[in-house]
């Protein structure tokens, strides 16, 4: 027995270098898999930028990004005008409208889940929020189109399509993100925090308002920013209810477009510089997303430091 064991050991020793070699090869393969994420982001940047370059070069930054003059020409793309400011504004406006509702609603629901609701009820709401997050955007868009738009039309006497309908649809998209992340943040707060406050004679509301929400500030902010990211990026649901006009929206019931809806509506028929201008809109979306990501990184670093 001993001899065999000895043999085995020498075998293993002999194979030591082969092992090390294989180990390194495997590690390189795994690293390559992980690097797909880097590669993907670089490729996305590269291709979106490459495709938008002709329009930037041809039209100039001012006419492309800071003009509201959107008069594309499908047959002769060079003859068109491709200012996207109207749609950047549309994106900001619809997102702002959505955040106005979904922020208090989402954080409120998170407080409800974490602090107020009995366990069984909290579970129901949590599952409900997860289901809400799973509803495909075309389904929410269709819901908006057949119910929200006519309702808004009836109440306001407008066509029903427009910023308000888009914002309401976006509330449904952003709400799960904000609620889930806020609830996680609240849950991660140390229990002593609440106990200390209650021990000092604070009521539940005072504890939530004066202790819990302020201590969770950074986490809640991140939740809202990620919710915002969802709202800015949402495409189909908004496209179905916003009215697809090229007017610069000034009223909540104005029909307009967002960056995403313009892209999805026009890409199928655009070519040349027209298509390039749509890629430039995607580039703006990409940059907005990057800004949000960096913002979140800064905030979470601040939170860790604190």
């Amino acid at each position, binding site marked *: 027995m001993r001899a065999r064991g000895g043999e085995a050991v020498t075998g293993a020793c002999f194979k030591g270098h082969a092992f090390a070699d294989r180990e390194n090869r495997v590690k390189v393969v795994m690293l390559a898999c992980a690097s797909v994420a880097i590669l993907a982001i670089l490729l996305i940047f590269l291709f979106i930028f490459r495709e938008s370059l002709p329009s930037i070069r041809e039209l100039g930054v001012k006419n492309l990004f800071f003009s509201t003059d959107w008069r594309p020409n*499908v*047959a*002769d793309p060079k003859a068109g005008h491709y200012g996207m400011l109207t749609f950047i504004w549309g994106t900001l406006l619809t997102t702002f409208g959505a955040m106005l509702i979904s922020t208090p609603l989402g954080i409120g629901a998170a407080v409800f889940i974490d602090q107020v609701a009995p366990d069984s009820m909290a579970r129901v709401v949590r599952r409900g929020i997860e289901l809400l997050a799973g509803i495909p955007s075309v389904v929410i868009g269709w819901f908006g189109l057949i119910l929200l738009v006519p309702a808004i039309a009836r109440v306001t006497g407008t066509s029903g399509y427009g910023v308000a309908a888009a914002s309401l649809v976006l509330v449904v998209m952003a709400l799960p993100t904000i609620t889930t992340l806020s609830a996680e943040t609240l849950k991660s707060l140390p229990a002593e925090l609440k106990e200390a406050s209650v021990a000092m004679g604070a009521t539940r509301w005072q504890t939530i308002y004066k202790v819990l929400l302020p201590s969770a500030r950074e986490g809640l902010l991140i939740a809202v920013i990620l919710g915002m990211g969802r709202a800015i990026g949402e495409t189909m649901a908004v496209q179905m209810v916003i009215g697809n006009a090229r007017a610069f929206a000034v009223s909540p019931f104005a029909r307009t477009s967002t960056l995403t809806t313009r892209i999805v509506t026009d890409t199928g*028929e655009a070519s040349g510089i027209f298509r390039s201008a749509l890629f430039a809109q995607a580039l703006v979306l990409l940059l907005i997303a990057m800004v949000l990501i960096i913002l979140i990184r800064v905030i979470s670093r601040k939170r860790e430091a604190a």
Partner: protein
Amino acid sequence: MLLSVGCGGRPETADDSIRGEVKVAGSTTVLPIAQEAAVEFMEANKRTEVEVQGGGSSAGITQLKEEVIDIANSSRELQPGENDGTIVDHKIAFDIIAIIVNPDLKITNLSRKQVKAIFTGKMTNWKEFGGPDREIVVVIRDQASGTREVFDKIALGSTSDKPVWCVPSAIESASNGVIREIVGATPTAIGYVSYGYVNKTIRAVELDGVSPTIENAAEGRYTMARFLHMFTQGEAEGPTRSYIDLVLSDEFQEEVVGQEYIEVKKVKRQ
């Protein structure tokens, strides 16, 4: 990427001699005709596959030039920039563009001037036409639409040098069907569709007292009308040729095209 691998057979030859794939895309106005023809064609020629998609006239022409498809359906003429001399035009029908409003609006006739004022946003309230005190909701087609181009040209006086644009708040729709839907569902809406899409959910209004009918258009009284086209890259060959021949056949023109459009040969003006 010409996918048609036909062997140059004519439609009269035996079934099996025509085989291959025909890809068709473009105008949604032409789509019903193209689709119906595809069904008949595939029934007659079992070894063929015709794939018809929408997308709009311009998209079709672009795809044809990129050789992604074999036939581009179009509801407008080729623009000067688009024709490099290799594209062949097959006129397959004549079509009317009807201006439609929601039936709730008590409006039956509009002058050409009024139409222009409404669609360009100079007049924005139905009050000015004796209607309710409500915003006019203008519904138009997307940029790739041939119908839109013809409408802009004839109704608004748009030219390629001096384009006239519809009011910015106009809702852009991807097809005739959607315009009809929105106009039908919105009490204050006005739009335009190909004649084939007119039905009871909306009302087609008269233009300068002339109603949009096949007779009026065929005889030149109703002027907002245009040919519908199938474009091919070079002369059509193989199954593509046979397919277009079927569309142009007297039988098909009479039974299908004649239902909602005007047969090509009946049109007096060019």
